[in-house]
Structures are given as C-alpha cells and as structure tokens.
C-alpha cells in the first residue's frame, strides 16, 4: 500500500543561462499515515519536488501518483486529496485571517455557513481565535505560519505537504506543530510529507527520511538506520549522517589553519 509513489520524477527549468536540472529522477514511495521527512542542502530540489507532487509544476520527466490519482491524468483528484503549505506562505496581507480561511473552505466546496464554522474550528485548533479579524499583514511570522497551516487543513486532506513548516517558529510553536502533525497522523491517518533543515526535528518527527542532493535521492531510511549506516557509529548524530551523505562535512581537523 502506497499513497505517494514517484518514478523517475524530474524537472528541468529552462533559463536564459541554460537549463537547470532541479530534480533529476526521484523514485520514492510513501505509505498511508507515514510522516516522511525530505532533507537536503539548499537548492537540492525539495521545493521543486513538492510543487510537482501538488500539481503546481509540470514534471519534465517521470510519473507520480498521489492518493491514487495520477499527477498528469487527474490533477483535480490530486488537488482534492492534498494540502500544501508553501515555503513562503500564501496569504494576502490586506485580507483578514477569517476571510482567508472562509474563502479557502469555499474553494474546497463548503457552503458559506460550513466555511464560517470550519474557520472557527481551525482557529481554535491552531490557536488563532484572537487573531481572526486581523489583516494577515498584522500577524507575526509564526502566527502567519499557523494560519498557512490552518488553511492547508481546511478540507482535511489525506496528504499534507509542508515546506519548511517550522522555519521562523519559536520553540513553543514548533513543539505545538510537532504535536499537531503527530495528532493528524494518529487520529486521521493523514500522511505528512515535510521538508526541514532542522535535523532534530527530522529525528523527532519523521518515521522515515529521504535525503536529496543535487536533485537525486542520496539516501533514505529511518533516522536510526541512517545514523548507523552513514554516521560511522551507533551513537552518531543525524548531523554526522547528513554531512556524510551530502559530502559537505567540515574539513578534517589536520588541514591548513583557518584564515578568517
């Protein structure tokens, strides 16, 4: 049983300075109810992969199905099944949080009354009740992040894609988000596909990690397995494993002295 599967998924951007192979053939499968962490250095192709899996970007190669719907043949089916929180959010600064939530509900087919009620529910869930009538420009970065996530949960998606959801969150909000992600999985069976640069977060939250580098999968496995295989010793940190996999480790200690 898989809820996401990709085969050779690829995307090349054509720019004035020539082609950029952002994603060069990714094969991966995700089980229903799994929390999958996608890790990789800046520019590895994480956001591009997410944008393809959410139908925002047409792949230039390969194929994928999400929640049983083929990306190209049934994009609307994919959209109904997915929620997506983009790396940079997606709310209009001039609009109130409430209006954004209600519009979102109605775009997913709720009636006006249902959408208003769902907005209140999500606000309680995401601790936004006091902030509902503020324009989103007047929210702090972390508050706006919670609103982005509330919007993505509007239709109770089967698969939730989160692109760096905890960047800019304070420790309390971050812990709250981890809780929410686990709760979505435990109580609703939601599959969560998230990217992060925080290895402690990946370690604590994800059932399985996929590490991409240069647009291809460099390693995958449970956090424990990656530490054992790549970290060198059983009690290595995920950081050691990550640096070994992506080949960006600090230079060995005995090279030339550092000139700063």
């Amino acid at each position, binding site marked *: 049983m898989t809820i996401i599967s990709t085969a050779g998924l690829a995307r090349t951007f054509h720019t004035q300075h020539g082609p950029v192979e952002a994603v060069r053939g990714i094969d991966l499968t995700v089980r229903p109810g799994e929390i999958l962490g996608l890790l990789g250095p800046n520019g590895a192709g994480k956001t591009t992969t997410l944008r393809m899996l959410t139908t925002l970007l047409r792949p230039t190669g390969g194929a994928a199905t999400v929640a049983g719907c083929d990306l190209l043949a049934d994009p609307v089916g994919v959209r109904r099944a997915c929620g997506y929180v983009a790396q940079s959010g997606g*709310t209009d600064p*001039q609009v109130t949080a409430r209006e954004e939530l209600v519009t979102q509900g109605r775009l997913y087919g709720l009636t006006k009354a249902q959408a208003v009620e769902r907005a209140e529910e999500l606000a309680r869930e995401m601790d936004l009740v006091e902030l509902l009538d503020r324009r989103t420009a007047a929210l702090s970065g972390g508050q706006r992040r919670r609103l982005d996530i509330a*919007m993505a949960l509007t239709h109770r998606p089967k698969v939730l894609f989160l692109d760096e959801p905890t960047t800019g969150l304070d420790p309390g909000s971050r812990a709250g988000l981890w809780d929410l992600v686990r709760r979505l999985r435990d109580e609703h069976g939601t599959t969560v596909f998230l990217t992060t640069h925080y290895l402690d977060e990946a370690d604590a939250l994800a059932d399985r990690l996929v590490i991409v580098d240069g647009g291809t999968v460099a390693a995958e496995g449970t956090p424990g397995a990656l530490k054992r295989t790549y970290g060198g010793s059983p009690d290595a940190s995920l950081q050691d494993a990550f640096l070994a996999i992506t080949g960006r480790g600090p230079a060995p200690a005995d090279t030339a002295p550092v000139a700063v």
Partner: protein
Amino acid sequence: MPLPPDQPRTLMPLPPLLHDTALIYGRYLRQSLRSRFALLFGLLMPLLYLLFFGPLLTHLPLGARGSSWQVLVPGLLLQLALFGASFAGFTIIVEKSQGVVERLRVTPAGRLALLLGRVLRDATVLLFQAVLLVLAAVAMGLRAPLPGILIGFAFVTLLAVSLASLSYALAMRVDTPQQFAPVINALTMPSMLLSGLLVPMTLAPAWLDALSRLVPLRYLVDAVRDAYVGSYATAHVLYGALVAVALAALSVTVGTRVFRTAGA
C-alpha cells in the same frame, strides 16, 4: 484537542465553473472596494482629456454627424478600458511573490474560474468608471441616445475582458514588473494612436488610415462612435461587434491556457 470528525459535504447548487468564478470574483471585488482611491484613480486620465482636450474639439470639423463630444467620449471610454485592463496583470505579479497565486492554484478551483473571477472584477471596475466618465461628459455637454450609450458600455466590457485576460497571461509568464511594464507600454501607446481614439482616423492620410485598420481597437472605436449618434445597423457596428467578440474569445482562451500550464 482532537480535530472534529469529517462532515459530509452538501452538494454545490451551482455548476463548478460559476461557483468558483463567483468566489474568486467576490474575493477580488472586495480587494478593489478596500482601495477606493485606486477605484477612482483610473478615471483621472480620461477626465483630464475630457476637461482640457474636449473643449478644443468643439468647433473643429471632425467629419462626423453629431457634436464633437459624440466623437470624443467613445474614444475616451475605450481608452479607459485600454489602459485600465492592460495593466491589470500587475496585481498578479505581486500576488505571485506573496504565494497567493500558488495557494489558489493548489485548490481544486477551476483554472478558467481563477482567470475569469479576476477578469470580471476588472470589467466591473472599468464599467463603473465608464459610467462616471459618461456622467461627467453629460455635464460637459454630451448628448447621445441611451441605447447608444449602453452599446458603448458593452464594448467597454468586452475590451476590458480581452485585455485583462491577455495582461494576466503575460504577467503569469514574467517574474518582475520591470519585465512587464515595457511590453504593455509598447503595445498600448501605438494602439491608442493608431485606432483614432482621440481624433477619428477618417481625418488621417490614406497610409495612416490603412495602417490603423490593422489595429483591432480601431473597429471598436468606429462602432461606438456610430452607436453614439444613433446609427445601430451599420457596417461599423457589425465589424466592431465581430472584432470585439473574437478578441474576447481568443484572449480568454490564451489566458486559460496560460493559467492551466503556469508555474514554469
């Protein structure tokens, strides 16, 4: 606190295209109503022409029946739509950088609805401005038959729909306002001059008249000028209507195609 259990969805009473278009239209109309200043700002240029250019024409032989106002006001109406709708795409460049465009595109909302909701908002705003402009023109001395004035509004709406669609299509393809504005300026200024918006092309030398027949806007201007003097069953009105409808169909098709495949 657990998430509430799933609720059954009620069936949508409207066909999806209408439902989604109405939603997007409402969203952007509220956006326009929030900035009353912008709502009136678009009127500034045609009003200035009306006030400071219109009186210059009153004793000139413009070669048409009726008063000079019946020649100038149709031109100003279409000029309003030309500039107002051509720059509509600016807002989508801003929204792309805010992530709003992708956030809407990731929902199941129809791609045509995402375009039409915006375009109909622009048409509504321009129609509102067109009504104010005609009222101001009446105060300045315009007298024209009501059916003619209504036909003029129909042409304003069709032109606004066409140009706003094309403008959004272009804006989806570029990354910055600096790439967008020069293209729009390079297209709107020649269109304005070559279509005889301010002074009819019937006064032009033969080569300029011939050249202007290549500009679609010319046919709309001629049609509205005929309507403003009460001549409805003329070749000008027929050609104008055909060009306006064809342009709208083509532009909305192009716009939808871009909205469907955008994200490159």
